[in-house]
Each structure stands twice: as structure tokens, then as C-alpha cells.
């Protein structure tokens, strides 16, 4: 068992095409760092130069935004799903 991270279509090209990645971690921050270690080019997409999550990328544990939980310190449990939800603009 591990935590499943879902990769949105827009970022799959930076994750070797994967739709999801399973990793072991204690909290969201460690989970995302583990993800970026596996797929380095995802780093620039998710984190800014200041090392903080970008303002157009949100992270959800289950259906809750981590900004309303404990941010990157939000604990994650085996079997939970963490979603990366970037802003997308298409419509035409």
C-alpha cells in the first residue's frame, strides 16, 4: 500500500506519460518531493523558484484542498489519493 498521486493530463508529459504514481510518504510535502525526485522536470511545473507550490497549482488530499488542511504538512495515509490540479484555460 502507498499513497496514489494523480497526474493531470497537462502535466503527464513531465511524468513520463504516467496518469498516476504510487509513493510512500508521511505528509504531502514529502510525497511531492518524492514525486519530483522520480520525475525532475515536474519540479519546475509544481514549485516556483522560491520552493513554494505555484499559485496556479492546487493539491488535494481526497476532496480537500491542502490550503484548508495543514498545507504541505498535511499527513497522508496508505490508500489515500492526492491530486495535483493545475489551472487549465482551454475552451475553444
Amino acid at each position: 500500500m502507498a499513497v496514489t498521486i494523480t497526474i493531470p493530463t497537462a502535466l503527464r508529459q513531465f511524468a513520463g506519460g504516467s496518469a498516476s504514481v504510487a509513493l510512500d510518504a508521511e505528509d504531502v510535502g514529502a510525497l511531492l518531493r518524492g514525486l519530483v525526485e522520480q520525475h525532475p522536470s515536474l519540479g519546475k511545473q509544481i514549485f516556483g523558484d522560491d520552493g513554494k507550490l505555484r499559485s496556479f497549482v492546487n493539491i488535494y488530499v481526497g476532496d480537500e484542498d491542502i490550503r484548508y488542511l495543514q498545507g504541505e504538512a498535511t499527513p497522508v495515509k496508505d490508500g489515500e489519493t492526492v491530486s495535483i490540479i493545475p489551472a487549465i484555460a482551454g475552451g475553444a
Partner: protein
Amino acid sequence: MSEATLSNEEIRRYSRHLIMPEVGMTGQRQLKQGSVLLIGTGGLGSPLALYLAAAGVGHIGLVDFDVVDESNLQRQIVHGSATVGMLKTESAKVRLHDLNPHIEVTTYETQITSANALEIMAPYNVIVDGTDNFPTRYLTNDAAVMLGKPNVYGSIFRFEGQATVFSPKDGGPCYRCLYPEPPPPGLVPSCAEGGVLGVLPGVIGTIQATEAIKLITGIGETLVGRLMLYDALAMRFRELKLRRDPACPVCGDNPTVTALIDYDQFCGILPEVNNLSNQYEITPSELAEWLQRDDRPYLLDVRNPYEVEIAAIPGTDKVIPVDQLPERLSELDSSREMVVYCRSGARSGSAVELLKRAGFRKVKNMVGGVLRWADDVDSSMAKY
């Protein structure tokens, strides 16, 4: 406003609405009296306009400055082969009046800007965001918050869509509660290289139309406070919770965005095509001639393999998608002069910048990409 009345003809037309107690005569009159502004008459705007017109929404506003292109018809179902080349607003208006002559359609052949947004949006009950770029989405959101109007949001990318209703007036969040600032240019895939499954905007636009009808008639539970996610490949709907952010720059307790902002347009705009090539640029005609000579350059295509299948320049030495380039520099032949190309010249432009930073000196971007190669060198090449 006086209560709208329905003619016998309208009663016959809307009978499947009228015999449902949730809509009935009251709801149908509300729809007739209702007004919806559609920002964008493209992928999302097409099903939106058709269903709202068919449902009998009395006044529909259409904002778009574009003309119908053949490549739109794979998904923009309000338009047709006969209206290629026509303004999208005009093309849609003709279709909507054919579908339902009892409604009023107002067209705005313009781009929404900070100067006109409030004026265009003010007369409408419900705003629907069906645009294709971040600057217009932020502008639409901010103006809707300032006017206290609900904003029915939908966006799509390839096989994936998002939809919700932003309505701070009803205690819900706005777009900036979700994403405070738009991404900087270059960090998100551009529209043209993104692509979209034709039926995807049909699903998301129809969800938006449903929400607009519920907002006008006051029935059911809207998507306020919920972000609906749709994955067409997995055929899965998911729902995430959205909250109003008290620190939101536009709808928060102490707003810092109090005037409309025109963000730089960075999607759908091709890099400027010039005819004079500088040290790091080359035109397709110049390249075609160079490829015939003995000192021909090393030709690098930075598009994705599925694009190469559609059209490619003969004699290409290597294909490396631009996002893989940083990790695959060692595969390149640095001893020869290099020319890099893509579809429009945008990705190859950033690839040339990257290669220059990595120490490659003799590298040029083919301006205008395969699109211009097709225009200037090989008219038999397919454009996509």
C-alpha cells in the same frame, strides 16, 4: 420587468419542460425573462448556445472576435461548413434563430477587455466563461465578482475538463480563490499544441448550460463550492470541495484587485514572423536552399512523435520533444550547425534559447515552423 408570457406556439415548443413540475410555466417564464452572456463561441460556447437557445432563454449574448475556421468544426457544433470564414458570432446567431426564433441574440464582435467588460456584462443575469485563455478568464471572473453576477466556469484540455459555478454573492468562491494569479507565459502548454477531443467541450459545455438554466430558474443544487472534474479517457467524474478564500485578492475581505486587469495575451498568438533572419533565425526558404548544399545543417524537430506523423521536413536528423531536450542533449551532434523546428516556431524558439544556454553556438530557429514551410516551400504539406 413585467412577467414574460408564453404564446400558444411557445407552449407547444416547450411542452416537455412545462409538464415537469420543477420547471412548469413558472420556470419557463423565468427562462424567457432570463439572459445569459456567453464569453466565447467556440468549443464550450457551441453546445452552450444551442442548448440555452433550445431551452428558451430569452436573451443570449455572444462575445467573440474570431471567424469560423475549418479546423473548428471537429467540435464547434454551432457552426457549419457553410459558415466557414464568417464571424463566429454571426454564424452562431443564424443557427440559434433557426433553432428558436422566439429568443433574442445580441452579438459583440470584440475581445473582452478591462475597458468594455463591465459594460458588456451588466445587462445579463448569468455570465458563462467559455473562453480559451487565462487573461480573459481572470478578466471575466473579476468583472463578474464586481457586478455580483454568477460566473459559470468550464475549461478543457485534451481529454480532461473542469466545471463549477463561481458566485461569491451566494457565499461561494471565485476563480481567484482557487488560483490567485494566472500562470506566467510559457509554463502551461499553449492551446495550439494542446489539442482537444472534439466531444469533450460537448460534455463540459452541456454541464455549464445545465447550471445556467438552474441558476435562472432557481431549481436544484448548483456547483457553487464544488469543482467537477471529468476525465474522458477513464470516463470518470470526480468532485473536489472549493471554499471562498477570505484572503482572495478580488472577493476576499480586503480585496487588492479593485480594478480590471488586462494580462498579457500569451495563448493562441503566434510569434512574430519576420522576413529577415538574424544570427539565430532562419526562414523556411533559406533552410530549403541550405539543405541542398554539401554543408547542410543538422536538422532537429522538437515536436511530439504524433505531430511528426502528420507532417515533417524531409531530411530531419533527429526528433526530440522540447520538454525532453534538457535530458537528451548528449544525443545531439554539436559539431555541425543546427536548425531547430516545430509547428509554429514557438517551441523551437525556446529550444534554441535552451541550446544556447547549454553552450551550443551554431544553432538557428526556423521561424514560422512547418506551417510556414508548407506556405513557402512545400504546398503539398499538410497543415494542422
